[in-house]
């Protein structure tokens, strides 16, 4: 019994490695996409704003699993793990963009006007005045989105990335304990996501305290 679980954990650890590649890279890429698209969405540049809306709407309406399968089987000529990273980044990038756009909108008008009045360009206004303030308010929702991203990594098993869930399904052939194996996988995700959730709650409190001061 104990030996079985040691085998399971030993076996699953290989899947962890794949996740350690996918999760941080997707987080960073989706943040980059999110900042660019979010700022563009806020600026409301004529034609571009429709493209941004289109992108965000599609990503909000499409199941990540369908997107993964579509991109993967379309012969994208990249490995499953690269496909997974790209799709997860593009998908969550749209949500991050919405979070950032909302964050910018929440900045008091006076800040924008102040920056404009001293003759800052749009870019430097964003970089030096607006964005530093945005970070503070969006961190809780950003962390929330990352929790969803981490949970979505289970979907990449469907395109053959050898991650945790896939290893779990493989080891079922040897150690036939479906309940135990899936519970171990669930515990792993729980630990990561729960810590992040706590972190976001903590940051939320800190930020509230700061803004009141």
């Amino acid at each position: 019994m104990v030996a079985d679980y040691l085998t399971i954990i030993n076996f699953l650890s290989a899947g962890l490695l794949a996740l350690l590649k996918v999760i941080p890279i997707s987080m960073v890429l989706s943040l980059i996409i999110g900042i660019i698209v979010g700022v563009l969405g806020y600026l409301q540049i004529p034609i571009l704003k429709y493209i941004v809306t289109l992108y965000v709407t599609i990503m909000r309406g499409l199941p990540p699993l369908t997107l993964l399968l579509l991109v993967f089987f379309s012969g994208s000529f990249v490995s499953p793990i690269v496909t997974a990273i790209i799709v997860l980044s593009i998908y969550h990038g749209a949500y991050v963009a919405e979070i950032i756009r909302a964050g910018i909108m929440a900045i008091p008008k006076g800040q924008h006007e102040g920056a404009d009045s001293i003759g800052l360009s749009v870019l430097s206004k964003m970089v030096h005045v607006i964005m530093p303030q945005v970070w503070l308010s969006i961190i809780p929702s950003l962390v929330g989105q990352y929790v969803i991203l981490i949970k979505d990594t289970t979907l990449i098993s469907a395109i053959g990335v050898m991650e945790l869930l896939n290893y779990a399904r493989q080891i079922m052939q040897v150690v036939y304990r479906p309940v135990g194996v899936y519970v171990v996988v669930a515990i792993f995700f729980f630990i990561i996501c729960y810590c992040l959730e706590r972190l976001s709650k903590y940051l939320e409190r800190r930020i509230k305290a700061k803004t009141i001061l």
Partner: protein
Amino acid sequence: MSKKTVALLCVLALMLTVVFTGCTKSTSAESGSTVAVEETVDAMDSIFESGKLVVATELGTPPFAFKNAQTGEIEGLAIELAQMFADDLGVELEVRPFEWSGIIPSLLTGQVDMLTTCLTRTTARAGKMIFIEPFVAVSAHALVRKGSGLTTLADLNNPDVVLTTTTGGIYEELGGKLFPDAQMKTNGTNADNAVALSAKRADAYLNDRLQLESSMSMYADQFELITEPIAWDSLAFATRFDSPKLANAANMFMRLSKMSGKYAEVFQKWMGYAYEPTFEVGS
């Protein structure tokens, strides 16, 4: 502009992009493939250059390819043959595991040089890749629950019967053809299919005999085979059309190892019974 109009515009734009990408991409793909034949390097040359033969396999298929739970090593008949082939070429072997649905794309997209997994030769697949001489032939059957009343293949072709098989495998299509009246479902792995059969979510599980035997061992005394095979399955390695040199070498290896008796040794080791040449696998 109201939200509704925006939404409508979005749908319209999406459909347009889909249609346009459809038109442009399909033409570029056609021209792309002809270019690819002229420009790409035979995998054989790159194998010698890098000193590494990269193969793809699915792990959940004992005794052909599976991860040894004790040692963590990937082993099996297909893996050992691949290792022998790599040794013959004088290069290292790198085995990359994929889930079944990712296996064929991994070869076609150039991530690996060769597939060394339980790949069934089919006419349709032969249009996608070069098959090497088969490394084993097994029969495919339908597995049913004991006492379910399903005893012949004819019993399966019934609207009340739910068939299951592995997602992305050949039996999904074959099952649909052989039993057009039955309902066809799929599950991700062999173990999942065994659960489906045991939990009465499916009435018959279609797969090759070895997979089915391993399902039977998971649920002792619950299942039985319908003895009449639904198909004969010859499993073979495969390479891409851009690599005829590699295909040629692999074919030669397969033939020579069968002649030298090395193949019979490995076969006995993994399959547990002596190798007898069949019309499918050859002498």
